[in-house]
């Protein structure tokens, strides 16, 4: 058995996240995104790989969408409405609320560009009807075997990591996440789980970000400097996420510095988004929740909505405009107007997709001439500031999360190929975890060798597990042992064990339920008796020539206990450390029994001597555990009457 991971998108690239994971015949699709850089069929994942016949309803168990960004949800209406998937879809409440806005917005942009429409507004709504909303840490039983659970991921409002479990195989798909909190969202939060696989994003696989305070300070300083010089600041952002964070930052700063320069929010979408934030306050950071009692942190004091006529109004201002990366729309329009002036400032998001104007600006040095399309060229003279704010975690964060979860395997997706490769190296060398970085349409199969079976435990086993059974092992410190021997150095001298869990015995019988038993029960269960192997030897001692014989032979009724007693004394002196029990009829040392043999023909007698009056026979029995001891004793017995010189 294995966990199979088919990467349909975001394999060694950023965009159209889509991973189909098969665990024990359950197929879960995580995310269903579209690629923003393409407008042909490459923009959607190649769904045909899931099912050649196109029967997605039977081949997929469910779809899980982590958050509302288009590269994670963009292809969903296409998949449900066009490809005809009708099965269950899960996402968090905020995602369900905000996704239609994003999809609709994108549909309009595509529409405006005059491209072929893939799905209509109605289809978006239709698609959203099929979605089941889930809450954080709510365990959803998708079907009899499959459980999923959402964990807070930071990143954007409503973003979640998903835990999925089939039987004993469990995985976590992170989606996009952030390990440090920002102004409005918290940090990712997950339990320590027993996982076979973690599929994590790795957008910033090689970036190590500095303290966020430094970044904030730098951003504020730049903006302040610009508006103080009478310039206009353009902040192209996406409607949700960075816009709110930066706006909170600026709003606080304005308050603190008592600035009067207006801050504008461009179109309706952003203001509407703020409304959603206000409603979904529970999904924001601790700080926002905390201040909520007194003031909603999204009621910005210094922010007003923008009017197109204000573009060329005199005086400084700060403007948030969509979309980010200046790929078109309103931000492009303002960009054209403001870019040629040196006093103005444009802040770029931390990451711009290749092909957008943002991407061109990122690598350029002003002044520069930029081709917007075939006909338009713009001389960019304004200052350009690249934001290092990002809702994605950096390499340290990824490693921290993986280390915390300590899964058996890691798959890296959602990142650029060379960077992913470096991170993969690091995960394997630093954390010692098997790591994969599949390309699109590749399948990673994670062997899953453990065989799981339901086992009933017997009462005796359960009872024994109730009482502790502690064992302490003191390890002798090996002095002067090899220094490179890590194990010896790292293990403490005294170790403690509680053996009750290890004491069970697994019994597998054909046509019967597998059972875990207590070891004492085994015999009865198998219907066998326990056999013990015993050794025996009837050892002759010749008393014919000894002094003792002379002393005692005259008394014919020499008591056999006399011989035993003699032996006892001898043994006591020979083995001062072992305890010897004198039981009258016999002596006992551990499992070794010895008694004086009075039988005429003892079967254990080796020497075929006849029973002579001058010989005393000692009949010995012992188990194999004490064999060494036994032979030592026997040698004592043989020399019982020899004088020691």
């Amino acid at each position, binding site marked *: 058995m294995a966990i199979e991971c088919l990467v349909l998108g975001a394999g060694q690239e950023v965009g159209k996240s889509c991973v189909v994971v098969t665990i024990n015949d359950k197929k879960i699709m995580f995310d269903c995104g579209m690629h923003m850089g393409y407008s042909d069929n490459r923009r959607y994942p190649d769904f045909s790989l899931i099912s050649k016949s196109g029967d997605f309803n039977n081949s997929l168990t469910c779809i899980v969408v982590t958050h509302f960004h288009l590269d994670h949800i963009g292809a969903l209406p296409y998949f449900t409405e066009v490809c005809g998937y009708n099965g269950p879809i899960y996402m968090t409440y905020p995602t369900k609320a905000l996704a239609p806005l994003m999809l609709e917005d994108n549909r309009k942009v595509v529409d405006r560009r005059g491209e072929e429409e893939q799905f209509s507004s109605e289809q978006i709504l239709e698609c959203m009807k099929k979605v089941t909303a889930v809450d954080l840490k709510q365990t959803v039983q998708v079907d009899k075997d499959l459980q999923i659970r959402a964990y807070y991921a930071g990143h954007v409002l409503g973003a979640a990591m998903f835990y999925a479990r089939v039987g004993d195989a469990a995985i976590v798909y992170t989606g996009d996440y952030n390990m*440090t*909190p920002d102004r409005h969202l*918290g*940090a*990712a*939060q*997950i*339990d*320590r*789980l*027993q996982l076979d696989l973690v599929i994590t994003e790795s957008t910033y696989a090689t970036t*190590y*970000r*500095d*303290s*966020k*305070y*430094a970044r904030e*300070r730098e951003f504020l300083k730049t903006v302040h400097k610009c508006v103080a010089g009478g310039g206009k600041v353009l902040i192209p952002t996406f409607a949700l996420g960075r816009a709110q964070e930066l706006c909170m930052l600026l709003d606080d700063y304005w308050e*603190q510095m008592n600035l009067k320069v207006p801050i504008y929010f461009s179109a309706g979408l952003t203001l509407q988004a703020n409304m959603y934030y206000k409603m979904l306050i529970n999904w924001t*950071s*601790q*700080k926002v929740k*905390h*201040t909520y009692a007194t003031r909603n942190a999204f009621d910005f004091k210094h922010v007003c909505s923008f009017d197109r006529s204000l573009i060329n109004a005199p005086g400084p201002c700060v403007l948030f405009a969509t979309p980010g990366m200046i790929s078109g729309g309103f931000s492009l329009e303002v960009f054209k107007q403001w870019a040629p002036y040196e006093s103005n400032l444009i802040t770029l998001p931390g990451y711009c997709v290749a092909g957008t104007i943002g991407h061109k600006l990122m690598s350029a040095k002003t002044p520069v001439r930029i081709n917007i399309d075939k006909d338009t060229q713009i001389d960019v003279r304004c200052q350009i500031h690249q934001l290092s704010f990002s809702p994605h975690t950096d390499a*340290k964060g990824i490693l*921290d999360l993986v*280390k*915390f979860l*300590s899964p058996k395997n890691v798959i890296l997706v959602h990142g650029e190929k060379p960077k992913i490769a470096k991170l993969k190296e690091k995960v394997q060398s*630093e954390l010692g975890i098997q790591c994969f970085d599949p390309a699109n349409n590749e399948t990673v199969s994670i062997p899953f060798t453990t065989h799981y079976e339901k086992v009933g435990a017997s009462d005796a086993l359960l*009872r024994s*597990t*109730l*009482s*502790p059974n*502690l064992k*302490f092992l*003191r390890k002798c*410190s090996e002095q002067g042992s090899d220094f490179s021997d*890590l194990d010896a*150095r*790292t*293990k*403490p*001298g*005294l*170790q*403690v*064990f*509680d053996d*009750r*869990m290890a004491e069970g015995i697994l019994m597998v019988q054909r046509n019967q339920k597998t059972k875990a038993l207590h070891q004492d029960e085994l015999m009865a269960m198998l219907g066998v008796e326990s056999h013990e192997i015993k050794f025996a030897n009837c050892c002759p001692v010749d008393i014919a020539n000894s002094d003792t014989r002379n002393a005692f032979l005259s008394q014919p009724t020499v008591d056999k206990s006399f011989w035993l007693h003699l032996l006892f004394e001898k043994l006591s002196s020979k083995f001062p450390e072992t305890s010897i029990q004198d039981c009258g009829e016999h002596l006992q040392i551990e499992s070794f029994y010895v008694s004086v043999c009075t039988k005429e023909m003892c079967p254990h007698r080796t020497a075929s001597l006849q029973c002579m009056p001058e010989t005393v026979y000692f009949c010995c029995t012992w188990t194999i555990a004490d064999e060494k001891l036994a032979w030592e004793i026997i040698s004592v017995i043989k020399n019982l009457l020899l004088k020691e010189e």
Partner: protein
Amino acid sequence: MEEQRLAEIHQAFSQNHNLPNKILNLALSLITSPFSSYSTLSSLLDTLTICLQNPASDHTNHHRVLSLVSSLSHHHPHFRHQIITIVRAFIYLPSTPSSSLHYALSVLLSANTKLNFPPGSTETTDPLADESLFLSLCFGQSVAARCILLRNVSKFCVRPSVLLPVLLGFTRDPYPKIREVALDGLVELSNCIMVEDQSLIESCYFRAVELLLDCDDPVRRSAVRTVSEWGRLLVAFNQDQSKKECSDAVFIQLCSMVRDMDMKIRVVAFDALGKIRMVSEDILLQTLSKRTLPKIKEDRYYGQFTAKLPKISGAAFAFVHGLEDEFHEVRRSACHSLCMLTAFSTEFARQAVNIVMDMLNDDSVVVRLQALETVRYMAISDHLMVEETILHRFLGTLLDRNDSIRSAARNTLQSMKLQNLAMFRLGLNSLMKNLEFYPQDEADLFFILFKLGRTHGKFVGSIIRDVFHELEPSFDGKLGFDNARTVALLVLGISASVSFERQICTVPPQIFSYAVTELGRISRALSDVVNQNSLLAYLSHCSRFTVVSASEFFKGEEPALQLEQSDFLLCQKSNESSEAYLTSPLLDYLANLHDRVTSCVKIVLRKISDIWRLIELGCMGEVIQTLRNWKEEFSKLTNYSPQTVGILAFTSKYIHVIKLLGKVWSHILPSGNLRYHGMGVLEVLLGKIDERLQEMWYRFTGLSREEELHLLEIMLLSCVLRISYLETCNFDASLKKICTIISRVENLCKEGAIELSNFVIDLQKLLSDIGNSSYGVFENVHLLRKSLKCFSPRQIVLSGEIKHLEAELNVHDNDFQNPLPFVSGLPVGIPFEITLYNLTPEKRLWLTMSVDGNSTQFVFLDLHEFGGCDEIMKFTFVAPFYGTPRVKYFSLKVRIAMECLSEGVRLFNYCEGPKRELIFLCKENEVHLSTPIK
């Protein structure tokens, strides 16, 4: 009515095994009713007992009955003994199902803690003293019972040697709750016992390290605490280099937990980091940087201290993560431990200050306060390099909306050392802005300005010169002094002349006269430092001299004394220049110098309780500073007034004791102690304290009852400290000593009708507890330690009659070059010039002479012989010294000692020497002797 109900209950119990709710309520009503008679209740208890003993009743019944028993014990304490016996019997009963055990145990525990066993009770009456019961229940089947037992480990008298392995074992329990309480037990245990077995410490530590990866959050949390505490023991156990390595390893191990997903774990982890007392600098620096620092080799071996070797990269960025955390609890904790750790490395402090400055803009007030505290701490401990950029960011807090933040910010600013005029100006401007926006801060702000001016005297002059035009009355002759800014500048101006820097200060004298016009306002602000009259005297003095620089002759640091003293010095100066008009008011006070000294002492004594609060908070730096200043002041005052010698000597000794106590405190404080001292230091400190106290007790006469009481209390404190931190093994003997002192305290209080202090009352209670119960030693020690918290120094007012018993010993014209002649082997007479102060002839004085410290010869000084019982007795005494060694040259160490007459215990048993303990009255003198050279 009552009987009727009782009968009903009896009937129900006898008939029905399954008790209906109605009957239970009925029984409960009887128990809770204050009118129920004793016989009713006792009969009810009997019924309940029978029900408990009935082997047929099941655990639901047991639960109900036991809850009734519990409420009975709660409402009627006189039944507790009986109840304990019953419940105990129930636990021992073989028929008791294991599922009922934990109910019984909880009843037992709650009844037992509220109970004081009467004297004479044997151990067997206390069920918690039964070790075998504890063990058998622990290893029994009931998980709930095990949980209760382990959680209340400290209440049971189990030998630590047994308890430790049991707890360690249960960290393996499959139930997370048990693992958690077992770890908590280990933490508790680590504070009470001395473990001598390194392998045992290691196994506890490593087991906790393993559990850092537990799946259960509370277990991980307890594991972090355990790693911290047992790591501490492990570090203490190691020597030198390995100690350092070990401490580093513990640090890194804890760092690995600061990225845990559970908020509480992060808080605990940072708290634990703050407690670490030794960390390498490069590791500290790594906690501020994400990339592995070039200095650090990843494969560097951090000792053998963890199951999975911690890598230093685990520590990377730890503090920044903590300070960026979403939860203010974590940020505060991180900021605090950062504060603690800055003490170890200047470089770390330099790098950390940047990020701490960011914390000043935090949303949470608690975090901001902690950040300010951190900055202040760094400034005080001289680890803060104030740069202009940093100052800019810091000064913003002066305009914070929260007044406690503003106040903390001002305090922090005051403790900073501003390096140049520009910075000082920056700070000043921000303070002015603060005053402008928040006029309510005026008084505090003036005070800070005054202090700031004193520490930065050289900048004040130039500032005042720049703003002088603002202060001058405008042309129309109106003095515009009513605005706060002007007054603030005036305060700054007058502060400079008392600055620490003894430069000629160039503040124009007009400033002082202008300041007089705002005397009320200023003196209100400075009321802690100086009273209105002295301020006026000072201002009027300064304003008269055009070129005088007060700072020329102002020294010292403690404001209260300094100003008062400065007045005094002022008049001296004036005397010389015979300016009678100035001195006349001050002459009066010269005459009253005696009063002056006593008033100084009074102030100091009054402040001691404040100081004590500081000690309790662990701010030893400030305390020592202040105490030292006071002492210096005293040393100056002594010269002027012989009659106050006694008071001053007493006070300075007292201050010394307080200082020593402070050091002890900083040593035992659970957090906040920065460096690790060995146990030896504590011993030395306590030894010194005892010595001082002895001296104070015997070398002063005329102590009032209050003062004696206070001394006794400090003795008690020292005993308790000793018993609870040093002599745990010698418990009973030390306890006896405490008892003796307490009885003396009681007597004194009775005589003087003085109330016992809380500390003594607490101790009394404790002692009777300890005497009556049979707690284990470490349990008792724990209790005693708790009692330390109650101690606070008594407010004492020294009466004027304190006399200091003192002696001076001198040999005329004897030094290294002029030795006395002697013939080796023959006795030699040494002519001593002895001066005795305040010694009455009844005192038994001895001259002690020793050659090399080991053989001492005592010579009795019979004071009657010398006659007179004046305050000062002066005479010459020729003392014979018999044991001259066979050398050409030797020196004798000579001292005068007094027998402690009231000390009952005879310690010495020389044939002809002193019988009791000796107190030395003078410093050791050396007498040089040499065989005459022919």
